[in-house]
């Protein structure tokens, strides 16, 4: 029995399944509705696969208007709605309940407008993150946020979770690159926020929507800021024989005035796993940093020299630069295959806390100690430049009690992140995974106002209701919502 509870589904709603499906079918094309229990199984979980529950039905609209129709019907019948992008959430953001309808954005796949002169692209939100940059490739532009799941994840999910990625050290996360949205409220009302302009007067509701984890609205169209592609980019690999010293080197690079696009960190365990899996030729040492710099050849050389001078003070065991595309790929190869390589070692939980950069060395040390206490192994691979850690807790799901132990360790590590001045989630979101830890980061009033905002957007609490806030904390809001006329 694992630790994260979901609310008891409403038997009354489940009993009305045929009525609900009929109402959807009366207003929407049959091919976008899935209600066969065999087929709804495909939507029973996202990338937090330890938790599964098939929904009542699934709707996969192709237009904003279809999303609005589905939402209006669910609202009228008081059926909870679980928004879903590509289902790559590691936090269980798209985990259904048995009494819910999943509304997926994956068929909203149109590119609507590319305007390189005004530097934006407008898309339907079911397009994948990577396809946006691919669409812009010929124009010499790109879309900056690059979550690891970018091949599969959609812009809708990126907006819901305010996704980041390796390169956000320089370019920011989704909210810094999102100019406007078209979205559907829980009532089915369509609202547009922002647009191609660089500023807006009025409240910044867009910033509230981005990262609201599908609890305020479903975003169906997005206007994204695009950037001209850099002339070139080159990674540098730096090896250290101490994790703490690697952490100090990160802080020194950040402070120096060189602004790398990315600083990635991998610890010894991760490096070994990667070597066994991808044979990237990484040095055998306690910690590896991959620092990427951008610009012309001369600019890259200049920045590389500066980083070399900084790193030299920390006595690296290796400082490897790349002189061509193949060498660059080889340096990135290990980092990019880290999650796959770790997967070969067994099951793992991927955490996502952020800590102040100066606290990296201490946090790494404490994670090692905690892992020992729990008798579990933890590998560390993360975005070091912004302190966004991804400890991977290895466990064996077939061994009774081990998932629970891994979750308990994960909770302790996330509490540690908060204690040192950081937060529970840097880029994956709270979902169900970190829901019950919210009280470690937020006082009751801090959470109360967030739930009151949800009351204002979605008085009935129909949109993704069992996420983000601990169930006992959100219960009064959900119950009041259920009594709404």
């Amino acid at each position, binding site marked *: 029995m694992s630790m994260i509870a979901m609310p008891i589904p409403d038997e009354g709603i489940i009993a009305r399944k045929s009525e609900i499906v009929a109402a959807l079918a009366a207003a929407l094309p049959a091919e976008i509705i899935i209600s066969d229990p065999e087929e709804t199984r495909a939507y029973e979980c996202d990338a937090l696969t330890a938790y599964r529950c098939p929904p009542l039905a699934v709707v996969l609209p192709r237009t904003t208007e279809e999303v609005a129709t589905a939402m209006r019907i669910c609202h009228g019948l008081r059926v909870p709605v679980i928004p879903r992008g590509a289902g790559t959430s590691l936090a269980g953001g798209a985990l259904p309940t048995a009494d819910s309808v999943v509304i997926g954005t994956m068929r909203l796949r149109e590119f609507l407008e590319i*305007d*390189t*002169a*005004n530097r934006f692209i407008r898309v339907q939100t079911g397009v994948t993150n990577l396809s946006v940059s691919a669409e812009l490739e010929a124009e*010499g532009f790109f879309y900056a946020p690059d979550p690891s799941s970018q091949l599969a994840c959609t812009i809708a999910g990126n907006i819901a*979770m305010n996704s*980041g990625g390796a390169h956000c050290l320089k370019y*920011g*996360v989704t*909210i810094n690159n999102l100019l406007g949205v078209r979205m559907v409220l829980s009532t089915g009302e369509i*609202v*547009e*926020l922002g647009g191609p*302009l*660089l*500023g*807006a*007067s009025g*409240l*910044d*509701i867009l*910033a*509230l929507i981005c*990262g*609201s984890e599908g609890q305020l609205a479903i975003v169906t169209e997005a206007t994204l800021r695009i950037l*001209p592609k*850099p002339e070139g980019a080159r990674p540098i690999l730096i090896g250290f024989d101490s994790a703490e010293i690697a952490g100090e080197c990160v*802080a020194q690079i*950040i*402070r120096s005035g*060189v*602004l790398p696009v990315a600083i990635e960190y991998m610890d010894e365990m991760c490096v070994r796993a990667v070597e066994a899996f991808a044979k990237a030729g990484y040095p055998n040492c306690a910690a590896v940093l991959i620092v990427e710099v951008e*610009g*012309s050849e*001369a*600019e890259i050389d*200049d*920045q590389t020299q500066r980083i070399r001078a900084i790193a030299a003070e920390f006595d690296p065991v290796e400082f490897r630069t790349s002189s061509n595309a193949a060498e660059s790929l080889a340096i990135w190869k290990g980092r990019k295959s880290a999650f796959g390589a770790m997967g070969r070692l067994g099951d793992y939980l991927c955490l996502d806390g*952020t800590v102040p*950069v*100066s606290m990296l060395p201490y946090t790494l040390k404490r994670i090692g100690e905690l892992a020992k206490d729990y008798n579990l192994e933890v590998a560390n691979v993360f*975005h070091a430049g*912004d*302190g*966004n850690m991804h400890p991977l807790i290895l466990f064996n799901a077939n061994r009774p009690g081990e998932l629970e132990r891994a979750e308990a360790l994960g909770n302790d590590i996330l509490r540690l992140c908060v204690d040192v001045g*950081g*937060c529970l*989630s*840097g*880029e*994956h979101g*709270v979902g169900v995974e*970190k829901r019950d830890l919210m009280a470690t*980061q*937020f006082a009751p*009033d801090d959470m109360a*106002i*967030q739930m009151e*905002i949800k009351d*204002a957007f979605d008085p009935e609490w129909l949109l993704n209701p069992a996420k983000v806030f601990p169930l006992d904390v959100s219960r009064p809001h959900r119950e009041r919502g259920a009594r709404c006329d």
Partner: protein
Amino acid sequence: MRLNETDVNRSQGADVLAPRDESELAAIIAESHASARPLRIVGGGTRVKMVETEHSRLLTTRQLSGIVTYEPGELTLIARAGTPVEEIEQMLAAERQTLAFEPMDHRSLLASKGTPTIGGVVSANVSGPRRVQVGACRDHLLGIRFVDGRGRIIKNGGRVMKNVTGLNLGKLLCGAYGALGVLTEVALKTLPMAESEQTLIFGGISVAEAVEIFLAGLSTPFEISGAAFHGGSAWLRIEGLSHQVEYRRERLTALFRHRTIDICKDEKSKALWRSLRDLRHFSDTTDAVWRIFVKPTDAPAVVTALQTLGGQVSLDWGGGLIWYCGIGDAVSVRKAAGSGQATLVRGGALCGDLIFAPERKGVAELSAALRRTFDPARIFNVGLMGSLDADKVY
């Protein structure tokens, strides 16, 4: 905690509430909430000249002052809302860092006195020319503490760059002009100062040519960090490591080889952009000043329409921001702005200052719902920012 008002803009000599700490502030707000007595909230009072609301008491955060922490190695600063911007800038400069969003100082434009505070910068989301490259104030805001309209002390966000834990209230309050809560503390990202900077100056050109130059420059990978126009001159700023700036200047000069280009460097360039940032070119006029956001490619047509109303313009953000200083009335200015958004920043002969562009219907309803959520008794800055009263001013 009551001061006799001297340096905050105010027509009458009534007392000013100036709480010394967060809990004093919370008590004042809780009491105001209970008695539904409106408050007019200011930091240093340099950015918003407002029509006085009859029953409002003035509340300033300027006594909530001081740096809480500054960690240059983490690029993070936490300061109390009333901390003078100048104090922060000096402290950062000592570590060769800066607030990269380059907040404007409104004093010369608005002829306001007083000391600009960091809380005021965040409340108004004040972002200067570098916004085109690095984003706005809100993009550099990491966390806040504030008191809501019921007197609750609330924190949101934190001091780390990446944080998606819960709803982002910091960015929502940034640019909300105190309508949702009174900021007590802000955490901001700082960035290293550029090692070197140069500005390319294009003289004797039209608005249309300037926008052409902006679009071409901003489509290069050379990270143009300023693209502005006024009085027949356009400026492109490049910043970075010394080698980088030299290289980029060469490449840009080659790109614009058919044009005459002057260069100014470092201190001269800095002074130029400070002056552009603060709209010094409009400080000796008294006409109304409008801030108009447009698509850069729309800028030439909007400027032509504005010029027929009488007055002058300047451009910033690569043409995405038009400043219009002139006698056009609100209806005509908004018509000229087309699909752009016009906000009145200085009233001139028009009645009142800081009048926001009207919101679309669905958005206006959400904004009203948020204001009710944060400030149920409607005590914060009544009459400012999209409130129903705004229409009456015309």
